[in-house]
């Protein structure tokens, strides 16, 4: 396979088409416009459907319609638009319909700005819309990973019949890197449940309305069993120099890339720092963190937010290690030097304790 030099936003689109996505619906918003533009050209050329919808709300509901027929469907947006999609994502969860939703995050709240941010972590990992549900969330940290994880996301969506969120940011979306794309999918999974007209068989309906509370409760627990399976089998993370580490950074996406630079820098001075980079934000690599806390007592959480993933780290470490948080919200992109200073400072605490 050839390497191509491509932006993150374009890579989302190309990977989706290769994964057999045949329907894309979206509404323009910076910093993810290149994704919709890519689809306008390439999705239609590939024989699929591209619609520039009247709103993000309409786009997610078009996704629902296409997904109900069994098509692989996708929408993308950035933070304010993702808020508008939440009602539809809740319906996807209730209907148990697969779909992939890309969020190229920007600074907030409100209109905020168009700079990279990680302020939508809570929204993404806690369901986001109303009702008792979860969505698997993938956080790529390179354009190659955007391609691989987007391709994978369609499989996860179909396998578990669930909406899946790709959580990225303006930095990931805009930057270009060499990528090797997965081969175009040959055969899509069969979907017996899809609506295709009753033909001569019995009629079917897809609804999320369940007025009988006992039945609704059963539906909720059924979803929970599915989520438990996802938590058991689909956790992904990347360990980076953790074997001898005495201080461990937890960061995802763009922040993890910057942290890698910082760790390389401090390692040159003998600082034994490492990183555990969550690739799935839900399910969160809780177990891996808990295991590390038996040996490592100092953790540093870096986020481009005021501290959202931090809470998952706190839950996972359950008081067994110290956590220092450093966040840059609002669209500020931190630097490796900035992170390395923090790591030096926190590392001193560890070495002092040892003495």
């Amino acid at each position, binding site marked *: 396979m050839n390497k191509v030099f491509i932006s993150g936003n374009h890579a989302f689109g190309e990977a989706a088409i290769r994964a057999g996505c045949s329907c894309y619906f979206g509404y323009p918003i910076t910093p993810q416009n290149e994704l919709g533009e890519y689809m306008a050209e390439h999705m239609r050329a590939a024989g699929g459907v591209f619609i520039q*919808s009247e709103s993000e709300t309409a786009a997610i509901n078009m996704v*629902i319609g296409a997904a109900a*027929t069994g098509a692989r469907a996708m929408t993308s947006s950035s933070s304010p638009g993702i808020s508008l999609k939440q009602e539809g994502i809740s319906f996807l969860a209730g209907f148990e319909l697969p779909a992939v939703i890309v969020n190229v995050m920007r600074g907030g709240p409100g209109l905020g700005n168009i700079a990279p941010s990680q302020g939508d972590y809570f929204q993404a990992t806690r369901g986001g819309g109303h009702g008792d549900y979860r969505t698997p969330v993938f956080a790529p940290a390179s354009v190659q990973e955007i391609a691989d994880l987007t391709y994978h996301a369609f499989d996860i969506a179909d396998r578990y019949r669930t909406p899946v969120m790709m959580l990225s940011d303006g930095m990931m979306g805009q930057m270009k890197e060499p990528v090797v794309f997965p081969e175009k999918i040959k055969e899509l999974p069969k979907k017996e449940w899809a609506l295709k*007209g009753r033909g001569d068989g019995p009629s079917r309906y897809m609804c999320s309305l369940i007025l009988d509370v006992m039945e609704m409760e059963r539906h909720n627990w059924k979803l929970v069993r599915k989520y438990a399976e996802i938590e058991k089998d689909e956790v992904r993370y990347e360990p980076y120099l953790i074997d001898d580490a005495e201080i461990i950074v937890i960061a995802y996406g763009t922040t993890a890339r910057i942290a890698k630079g910082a760790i390389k820098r401090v390692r040159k001075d003998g600082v034994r720092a490492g990183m555990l980079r969550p690739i799935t934000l839900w399910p969160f690599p809780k177990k891996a963190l808990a295991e590390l806390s038996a040996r490592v007592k100092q953790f540093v959480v870096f986020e481009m937010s005021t501290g959202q993933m931090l809470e998952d780290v706190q839950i996972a470490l359950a008081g067994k290690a110290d956590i220092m948080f450093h966040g840059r919200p609002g669209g500020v992109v931190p630097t490796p030097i900035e992170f390395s200073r923090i790591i030096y400072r926190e590392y001193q605490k560890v070495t002092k304790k040892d003495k």
Partner: protein
Amino acid sequence: MKLKNTWPKYYKRDVVTHYCPGCGHGIVHRIVAEVLEELDLGGRAICVNPAGCAVLAYLYFDFDVIESAHGRGTAIATGVKRSRPDLFVFTYQGDGDLSAIGTAETIHSANRGENIAVIFINNAVYGMTGGQMAPTTLIDMKTTTTPAGRDPKYDGYPLHITEVVAQFPGVVYAERVAIDSPTGIRKTKKAIAAAFQTQVDGLGYSIIEVLSPCPTNWKQSPVDSFKWVSEVMTTEFPLGVLTDKRSRKG
């Protein structure tokens, strides 16, 4: 002449209706089932049902149905139809669903000229939530949120959304009919058949607005509410074909 009582093929048997006595929804449901049978569309039909009293339409419709979030019906129908153009796709929506919360979806699906049919039940109130004002509530009409009657200076005027979309080049057929009499019911059936045929012929978007009684929230007897449709509602919402571009070339 012998009266025939036939059961439409695409209408479920042995179900007890949840609709109030005299409600228009049940009548329009039956018409839809009859037309689908007559045009032989039931096997490949997908109905998008609304949030509203007709949210339970799938209890009666014996063809495939997908529910929509309040107002989003035509966006879902767009997704279904674009993904599977061979399916027959229509929405069934109330006045709150279609012309308040779903206005943007209504306008833009119509303006795109989606090849779908829309059945729009105008009963001048929010039936399901207990009779609040709808965009279509008549001037001076009392509802639970216009207890002194709808004051246009305060609450705005009745919205004529079918007239709005009828102007769009993408809207091929638009008609307003009424469930107020046997004649009205026959005309409604004819209009729905015309709309459905429009999609079958691949011509584009059609919308049939049905003035439909809600005796419960109008606080009238079924008989009086049918009369109110003919005598009062039609003065605000005149019946007839609002656009017919079926013979247009290209």
